[in-house]
């Protein structure tokens, strides 16, 4: 790496080499990270009673698959009973409701704040809000997006369960908060990338801030926003089960209980419902996305 660097340095044009060097540095840092991460992981793994790459792992895996499918079990498998299908189906319905609620909360949050997180609306020559106050609002809103986004849904749920009573709501709020940060950032970036000409035209006619919002920004930004909404919904339905581990509601709670009671055929049934939900949401979202265009 270094020899190539030294050899090429005199010949390259002076202003291009920092760019190359940064990428090279990043790749090198990534290599170092990869190697040390694997050394760490394999070291910890080596301290176990048996390492991952052993016959023992394979056998355990085989046994676990057998447990999931109810092979060699004396009790009737959960997925062979219609009543089990019905009760877990109700949980799947709740999880679906939780995901819709979550994307709704995230959308409301993002819709309230996204305009204040758009750099071009809050500062610069285009901004009607040119003052230091609005600049402060911009950084505050962007900071809020960063913090809500950086904390994973499950950790939000762990925190929220201290405040809200167990049920669908804490899970939906946890999912909503994390996705609010993501949606907020994405929708602010939509506004930053908007075609400025219609907005300028509106301003030149003397339109006020509110009018510029309603007639200039929203019509351009909303279709794109709705597309992101569906894209995030696909992610949320996958995560709704995970949030349910702590928030009491839907498939996740039952998954956790069945795991700790070793009811593995119920776990298998819950996974089937989970996959059905994910598939259904993926199909619905891609259909509705077409409506938004």
């Amino acid at each position, binding site marked *: 790496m270094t020899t190539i660097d030294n050899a090429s340095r005199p010949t390259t044009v002076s202003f291009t080499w920092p760019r190359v060097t940064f990428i090279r540095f990043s790749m090198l840092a990534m290599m170092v990270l990869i190697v040390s991460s694997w050394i760490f992981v394999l070291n910890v793994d080596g301290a176990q009673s048996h390492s991952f790459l052993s016959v023992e792992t394979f056998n355990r895996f085989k046994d676990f698959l057998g447990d999931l499918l109810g092979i060699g079990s004396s009790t009737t498998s959960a997925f062979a009973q219609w009543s089990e299908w019905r009760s877990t189906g109700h949980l799947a319905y709740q999880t679906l409701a939780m995901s819709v*609620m979550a994307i709704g909360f995230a959308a409301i949050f993002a819709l309230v704040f996204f305009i204040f997180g758009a750099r071009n609306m809050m500062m610069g020559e285009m901004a009607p809000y040119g003052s230091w106050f609005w600049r402060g609002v911009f950084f505050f809103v962007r900071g809020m997006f960063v913090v809500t986004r950086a904390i994973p849904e499950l950790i939000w749920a762990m925190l929220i369960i201290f405040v809200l009573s167990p049920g669908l709501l804490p899970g939906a709020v946890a999912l909503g908060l994390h996705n609010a940060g993501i949606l907020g950032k994405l929708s602010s970036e939509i506004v930053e990338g908007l075609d400025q000409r219609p907005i300028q035209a509106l301003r030149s006619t003397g339109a006020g801030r509110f009018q510029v919002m309603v007639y200039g920004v929203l019509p351009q930004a909303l279709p794109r926003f709705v597309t992101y909404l569906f894209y995030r919904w696909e992610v949320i339905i996958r995560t709704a089960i995970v949030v349910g581990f702590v928030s009491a509601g839907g498939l996740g709670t039952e998954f956790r209980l069945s795991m700790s009671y070793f009811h593995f055929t119920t776990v298998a049934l819950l996974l089937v419902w989970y996959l059905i939900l994910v598939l259904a949401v993926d199909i619905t979202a891609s259909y509705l996305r077409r409506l938004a265009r």
Partner: protein
Amino acid sequence: MTSMTSRDSAQKPRLLESRRVLTLILLAAFAWSLLNLDWTEGFIHSGGISAMGEFASALFSLDLSADTLSAAVSASWTTVAYAVAGLTLALFIGIPLGAIGSGVLTKSPWVRATGAGGSRFSLAFFRSIHELVWAWLFVAAIGLSPMAAVLALAIPYGGILGRIYAELLQDVPEAPLQSLRSTGASEWRVFWYGRLPMALPDMLSYTFYRLECGIRSAAIMSFVGLGGLGHEVRIALDDLAYQQVWTYLLFLIGLVVIVDIWSTMVRRRLSE
């Protein structure tokens, strides 16, 4: 992210109608979801408000003792190590399955259909299950090995990477590939000397973007007992030690922000 262009300038009245329908659908769906809540009882449980107050005030009395800080640093490293190791393994799933799934490796229609269909199906299956669910299944199957966390991260991330790689490999401009073919190169050679080098910057860029998500995913692996920042948050919450919770949360936020900035810088330079 493609930049927003004036896609609406040529919109037709019919489209406007379908949008109105869509708005109604969305509002109705949200209302339906709210109906599933139990409105008869309060949503905030007794002591919830005071817990929130205590939690908020704990931010101003952070636990910065040496013990907590060293625990935070080592948990951060565990989280990063899981994320990076998981992502490298995800590459071994994503690259081959993505290449096969793009259907560009061969001209034979029969092989192409089965190969692409099969690998696309498995990629979709891999990414439809959340990494923590994978992790729990692995822990139940093979016990508390860090390899369970790494595998659990690698499978859904491999599924996402493979899908994006397949799309990027398909979207490569045709002209340079045609010139390779005219020299008599097989589709396999065209892939190695044409498609892959052209798609590589975008593939790399997307992988770096995924690293940030990987950090967050790795942080919650603790839920099934695999260590990392989430583990510390959880223990501190069980002890009601809110000051420590904040310290670990700030470490997590800092980690995600650093990786985010790094990956944004790399991606900006890759796309130049």
